[in-house]
């Protein structure tokens, strides 16, 4: 390949430099936020599908929970719900601090928020182990299947978002290529989504 324009006749005639281009006006809402909002619509519809499935299947069965299946731990999970909501709240406060350029305090509060999220995850895992000991598995009944499906789907999201946020937390104070408050916002939005969808699932799966 001696002449770049001859080999690339198929797709692109020549290369132009992408530097020194006129900057366009800053959009009112950043691309990350728009992208995340659209993604959240899809996620919300995913959970709406699960909720619909739960309601339809639940309506066809008289005895709920079915015979021989354990009752769900409503009280401990209520406490767990509060922990998760608190995590969402501290996340909001940390954003306020970061926007005011108080990086140290903001980073610390974000860390607390992530710790609370991890606590929620561990407590949920402990609960699962106990339920499995009581003989409630994915295939023991459609009750168990729905529980593990819905709570598992939420737990999967918690794990994913926590992993990304911990990575972002590391980069918040990094010397090279640090993340800004604006760059953090889409990830925080996803965490708010995970936090906000939990009470709905809690009421649906544990209380009805």
């Amino acid at each position, binding site marked *: 390949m001696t002449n770049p324009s001859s080999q690339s006749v198929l*797709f692109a005639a020549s290369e132009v430099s992408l530097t020194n*281009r006129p900057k366009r006006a800053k959009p009112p809402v950043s*691309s990350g936020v728009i992208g995340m909002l659209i993604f959240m619509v899809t996620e919300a519809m995913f959970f709406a599908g699960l909720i619909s499935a739960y309601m339809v299947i639940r309506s066809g069965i008289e005895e709920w929970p079915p015979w021989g299946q354990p009752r769900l731990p409503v009280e401990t999970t209520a406490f767990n719900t509060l922990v998760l909501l608190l995590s969402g709240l501290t996340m909001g406060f940390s954003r306020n601090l970061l926007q005011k350029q108080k990086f140290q305090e903001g980073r610390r509060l974000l860390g607390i928020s992530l710790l609370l999220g991890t606590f929620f995850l561990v407590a949920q895992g402990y609960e699962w182990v106990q339920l499995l000991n009581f003989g409630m598995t994915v295939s023991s*009944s459609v009750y168990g299947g729905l529980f593990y499906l819905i709570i598992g789907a939420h737990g999967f999201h918690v794990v994913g978002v926590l992993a990304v946020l911990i990575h972002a937390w590391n980069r918040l104070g990094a010397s090279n290529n640090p993340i800004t408050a604006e760059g953090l916002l889409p990830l925080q939005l996803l965490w708010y989504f995970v936090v906000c969808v939990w009470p709905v699932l809690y009421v649906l799966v544990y209380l009805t």
Partner: protein
Amino acid sequence: MSQAAAAVETGIHAEHHEDLNFLHKYILPLDHKIIAMQYIFTGMIMAIIGGYFAYAFRMQLAFPGELVPGYGLVGPGEYNMLVTNHGTIMIFWVAMPVLIAGFGNYLIPLMIGCDDMVFPRINRLSYQIFLVSALVLILSFFVKGGGFGGAWTAYPPLSSVAEYNLTDWGSSLWVLAVALEFISFLLGGINFVTTAMNARAPGMKMMDIPIAVWFIVIAVILFMASVGPLIAGAVMLFMDQRIGTTFFLPSGGGDPLLWEHLFWFFGHPEVYVVLLPTLGIVADIITVFSRKKLFGYKTVLYTAFATGGLSFVVWAHHQFIAGIDPRMANIFVVTTVLISIPLAEMMFSYIATLYGGSIELKTPMLWALSFLAAFLIGGVTGIYLGASALDVYFHDSYFVLAHFHYTFFPITIIGMFAALTFWFPKMFGRMMNETLGKIHFWGTFIPFNCIFLPLFFLGLAGQHRRIYNYQHFPDLATQELQNIRIFATVSLVVMLLFQLVFVYNFFVSMFKGEKAPDNPWRANTLEWSTSSPPPHGNFKKLPTVYRGAYEYSTPGREEDFWPQNVAPE
């Protein structure tokens, strides 16, 4: 700056880095144009597979029990696998990647005047996941038991219990492939909407965006908002197949109707997801070739919004005979018939655009006009099916089959050819051969009608879908009906043979065609203001937009077109 551009700048090492350069330019590109090509070429290869499947099962219907040349014997299980995967491939691996991902990727940045997508890496990842999904689907044909044969709608318990469908791994891989494909388009869709929102050229207002971009963006939003429940359903189906849950099994407390709701909640908006890009592309083509302003830009746009909104409230018309509440069925009859109003309005707008224009019948224009004609037949027959009283009799007959092929064929195949022939000069810098293009057009459009018009009559005669041999049904085994089947099959073979003309024209024009000028069709939109093919980064200088996309034959101007980026005097 991309790897490719960097490699060109350090030209001394070009020879040394040749492989790397090629790898980053064509295999792992960040450039939206190359990613679009990847999508389009993958979609075309999948279209060949889908067409081959159609050939095999149509031959079986015309000459039951005989060896199909080039395929072999088609047994009942094999037949089911062929029709299932023909449907799946044509919708999910041809219509979606070519029309939305392919042309969306190619056109959005060029038409709104920016250098690339907002998230190029997500764009690349989207294609890679798509490629994996296509490979998983192809793999599913070769596992033990063969490919999945439970129809592209995959109704449980047929799809969820291995003892019923006899394709244990084939069905699981099918679900996996479809789910992966959705994730791929999800990533691509985020990109499209964000790019169209935030990266428009300076001066381009909402109402200056070409209709093609608008419609692709609306289609993507519809897709994003409707795909969630199906992903949930796919996860549940996969769990039913592999780890023994009973979400869709009545014996275990589940409900098989639930899948139909989750599937069609996505499945019906999906029809509009693939329809809208083609409608947008056709709008752009007919304005260029009738040298007239698009009649009612805002009307067309708002009817698209209305179509999108209504498309969420029509899906239960697929369950009219599945045992849904008749009260609910009635509501869905009303909404289904309602959705024909915005689409009819759009059609009238297009026809009004043609009225009084100076029409040039170039190949892309022929495709665009044939789309309008063919889609009209598809749309009108849809009204019969939307009425629940008639649907009771038509359901799952060949009438339904002919109806949705009269919508999907114009959308997918005709739309794809219209777009390819129109943007070919921009994509490859060379013109396509007009004569061969017209031969290919007539050789496709006439056989297409010969295939599917007779199928309406077969459906009215009571022929049911998904039966591999009608000789077992005395009423359907008459020579009269068999002659119709043979006619349709022969037309299909003729149509497939004419595609060779296109393949020849495509590849010969790509390398040996006449050099294309920057703006061969004298069109207004921004992609024609850059060189053909556009360089990496699309524009030498970022364009500024001064007017709408459809200012053709403006009174008082010498030229009959007025590009968006030309400053007013």
